[in-house]
């Protein structure tokens, strides 16, 4: 059996055993799920009851950016950590930044870029009161970036490349500045001023959206994007 072959999916005795164990596990989990009492968690009423004070109308956004903003802050940090991990194991970008141009993709990209930016911004704004928010908006912008890389519109000598690293950290920076700034002013970490909590939440979310979008594109590329001068010598992939 060669190493590169796909898995042999035949049901060997060992797999039968694993399958039986899994059936038992699922049975146990199902029993546990069925035994959950209704309304054991009272967080729902707390979260919904204090919506007025949170500055936003969408309870999920209130949890993410107000009640538990520390979690969301660390979540943005996890994105960055994953990217640092990828950059540590794969120094060179795996998806070549320069790929064959295709007119269909480029035209599609040019038509959809403004639409995707507008819908990303709309999702971000909408997150305050309805379904939406920084992660959804960041995902739309990330998809735009992936299309952009695929269509070779993002050339390494672009001014955009120099903005990549600042854009990656702007989300965490905004979180730290707002959260830490409140501490310096005598409040708690992430205690927003009551009257304009929404402004601060939107500010942090905007910065986070930019970071999330760029990080997703960088995850897709799978390595450090090459410099303009690095790129000249090595157009082929000699990994």
């Amino acid at each position, binding site marked *: 059996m060669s190493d590169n072959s796909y898995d042999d999916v035949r049901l060997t005795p060992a797999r039968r055993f694993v399958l039986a164990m899994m059936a038992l596990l699922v049975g146990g989990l199902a029993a546990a799920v069925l035994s959950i009492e209704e309304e054991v968690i009272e967080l729902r009423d707390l979260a919904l009851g204090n919506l007025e004070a949170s500055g936003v109308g969408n309870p999920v956004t209130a949890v993410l950016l107000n009640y538990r903003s520390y979690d969301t802050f660390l979540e943005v940090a996890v994105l960055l950590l994953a990217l640092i991990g990828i950059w540590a194991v794969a120094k060179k970008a795996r998806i070549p930044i320069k790929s064959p141009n295709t007119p269909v993709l480029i035209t599609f990209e040019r038509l959809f870029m403004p639409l995707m930016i507008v819908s990303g911004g709309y999702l971000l704004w909408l997150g305050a009161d309805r379904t939406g928010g920084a*992660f959804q908006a960041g995902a739309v912008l990330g998809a735009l970036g992936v299309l952009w890389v695929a269509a070779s519109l993002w050339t390494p000598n672009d001014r955009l490349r120099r903005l990549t690293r600042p854009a990656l950290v702007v989300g965490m920076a905004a979180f730290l500045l707002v959260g830490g700034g409140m501490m310096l002013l005598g409040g708690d970490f992430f205690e927003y001023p009551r009257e304009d909590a929404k402004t601060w939440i939107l500010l942090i979310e905007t910065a986070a959206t930019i970071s999330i979008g760029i990080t997703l594109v960088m995850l897709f590329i799978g390595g450090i994007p090459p410099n303009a001068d690095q790129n000249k010598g090595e157009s082929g992939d000699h990994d």
Partner: protein
Amino acid sequence: MIDLDTGTFYMLVGTVLFGIGFYGLIAYPHLLRKILAMNIMGIGVFMIFIAAAYGSGEGDPDPVPHALVITGIVVAVCATGLALSLAVQVQALTGSPKLDADKE
């Protein structure tokens, strides 16, 4: 007799997804398959959380599990990206997309 409402149904589907993913993770050596299996396990957990937020379907859903799930999705995407990168590195260094211990 079990009173099977919508929330409970989706919770049970979540446990089955978790089991399918766990089986894939253990039973097959290819790293890409393991990464996909891990994602299916995660989706099962998300489904249970969302179903828990739905509860009996009366009143507004609980926003706290929703926030946990969106955090979980982001972390899952990060972990998948990092895992794929490591898997590609394993393939590049050893010439095989499987770990030594798993080779047949």
